[in-house]
């Protein structure tokens, strides 16, 4: 068990290093090959040569990529001082970079926006797990019935609808035409009911997409497992159908879903970009989109790293849970 966990942890750390290198590659090597001077994108397109040169020196953009990646990595733990062109900029301990475009450190902005994204992802996850799993299991058990076909048609429609379209539709219907919900985002510390009201539509919209996906996969997995020998054995030894389903079939159905949940939650942590854009939620996703549109590379870098970290942590948690649920994993 311990050896398994150490191995997974080691794999996660390797993966993180790879991700950092890839991110650096994307932002530093690709522009170089393409003949674009990245220093200009840190300053702005109309920058004069002198300030571009100052930024290049300040950020160490002339150094080899590995040196830059190392400096960045070191900054996360030890903080970082940018100096060059006469002025000095401090970026304290968890330094995820400093945006010279917006004149602010990346980390505080990330921590400010993260709670919004977290609340969106977790709230939606609760909804999609309840409805997705219930619909999938019921469909598998009542295969071929009207319920099954109805649920699967809805699920198929769900996975075929782009989230920004369902989002806009729900805004137009529930907020604008019917006036049931005031869809403005309100920070949680201002008013709970206002915050809750503003999050309802984003939660439902996001959860609808994932519930549809999970329902389809739950149904397929469940049906496959119900055909397995050990289910027949369980039935043959006289177990009640309820026990067969609950104790034998459900457990095996849940394991692959757990992997999915880990990945999906991790990916959403980096900002449910589409949902946040549609509903104007001030989360990480909207920040990264702004950063991309302004070519504000330090922010993009910061969010990509945070997301990758979230995906890794989520996968690690799933691995640990796996070991707890499934004895075969522990011994492997």
């Amino acid at each position: 068990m311990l050896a398994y966990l150490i191995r997974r942890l080691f794999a996660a750390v390797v993966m993180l290093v790879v991700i950092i290198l890839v991110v650096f590659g994307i932002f530093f090597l690709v522009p170089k090959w393409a003949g674009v001077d990245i220093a200009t994108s840190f300053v702005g397109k109309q920058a004069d040569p002198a300030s571009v040169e100052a930024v290049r020196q300040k950020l160490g953009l002339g150094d080899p990529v590995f040196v830059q990646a190392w400096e960045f990595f070191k900054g996360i733990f030890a903080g970082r001082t940018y100096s060059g062109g006469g002025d000095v900029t401090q970026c304290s301990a968890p330094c995820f970079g400093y945006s010279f475009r917006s004149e602010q450190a990346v980390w505080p902005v990330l921590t400010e926006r993260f709670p919004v994204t977290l609340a969106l992802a977790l709230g939606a996850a609760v909804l999609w797990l309840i409805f997705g799993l219930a619909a999938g299991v019921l469909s598998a058990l009542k295969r071929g019935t009207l319920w099954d076909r109805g649920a699967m048609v809805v699920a198929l429609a769900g996975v075929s609808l782009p989230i920004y379209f369902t989002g806009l539709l729900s805004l137009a219907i529930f907020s604008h035409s019917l006036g049931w919900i005031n869809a403005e985002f309100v920070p949680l510390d201002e008013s709970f009911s206002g915050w809750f009201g503003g999050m309802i539509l984003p939660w439902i919209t996001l959860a609808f997409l994932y519930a549809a996906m999970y329902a389809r996969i739950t149904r397929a997995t469940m049906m496959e497992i119900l055909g397995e020998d050990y289910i027949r054995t369980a039935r043959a030894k006289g177990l009640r159908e309820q026990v067969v389903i609950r104790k034998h079939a459900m457990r095996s159905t849940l394991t692959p879903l757990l992997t999915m949940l880990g990945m999906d939650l991790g990916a959403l942590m980096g900002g449910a970009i589409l949902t946040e854009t549609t509903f104007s939620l001030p989360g990480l996703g909207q920040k990264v989109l702004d950063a991309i549109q302004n070519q504000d590379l330090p922010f993009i870098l910061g969010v990509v790293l945070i997301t990758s970290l979230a995906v890794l942590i989520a996968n690690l948690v799933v691995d640990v849970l796996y070991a707890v649920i499934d004895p075969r994993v522990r011994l492997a």
Partner: protein
Amino acid sequence: MTAPLHEPTAEAAPSAAEEAAVAGAEAKAVQGRSLGRIAWERLKRDKLALTGGIVVLVLIVVAILAPLITNIVGQDPDAYHEDLIDPLFGTPTGSLGGISGDHWFGVEPVNGRDIFARIVHGARISLLVGFLSAIVAVIIGTVLGVLAGFFGGWVDALISRVMDGLLAFPQLLFIIALVSVMPNQMLGLSGTGVRLFVMILVIGFFGWPYIGRVVRGQTLSMREREYVEAARSLGAGRFYILFKELLPNLVAPIIVYTTMMIPTNILTEAALSFLGVGVKPPTSSWGQMLSSAIDYYQSDPMYMVIPGVAIFITVLAFNLFGDGVRDALDPKGSR
């Protein structure tokens, strides 16, 4: 060693054909059916999948003939019709977003461009990116998946790790980042050309592990089958086994995963355009139309509904067709 192996097959071919001809003449009752034929017969019975397939065909035709269609209808996707716009609110004057005999789907707010023409032209972008990126994914995924499954050992370990890694990546973020750092001119292409090229490559690149995993698994299990062993004991070389014994058996899963991948890619393209990193105006794409429709969802809801429904119908049709193809080709299928 492989040379003598070719001869018997070359001789066997005509004799098999003769046999078939003789058998066909003698008794029509029992006929051997190929997998493709069985699949097609199953597919024909699946009404939903057929409907999906027909819609897909229509969409392909529309995309190919887009300029012709808009010419016949007499609408230019880039022509402004400011006379149809309410100067005070910037929204179309007619009801339902300005839908009329001339403008079947209405006109855009502010500049009054014909939405029907823009939807028809937008279909080209969606389908082009959807198909080509799927092809990119299939090529990379099949080659690497077969290599991993066939050679095993460190090749397999390396490729499998890369696939796991890519699947755990925050994909949309990386796709956005990659697409946004790409220059506006490269390889002799410019503007929309570069955007399309980059999107196809990047979406395809992040899609290959899905196919790669399946192909690897299939190859791994088939490598030890009796017919491969038989070929090997007859002295067949690695490449003969690879191309003549393994690849033909991989065609079915590859087709299934390709058809299921196209709608996902179409959604990704629309999402990128929606976020403003896809194709740039004035080239029209559905995602981009939806993104500009955000500002008008209260005053001109039709502007949002039409591109949204276009994406929905397209993706739904591909999904229905894909599900049908999977059911038809799946040997475990109960029908």
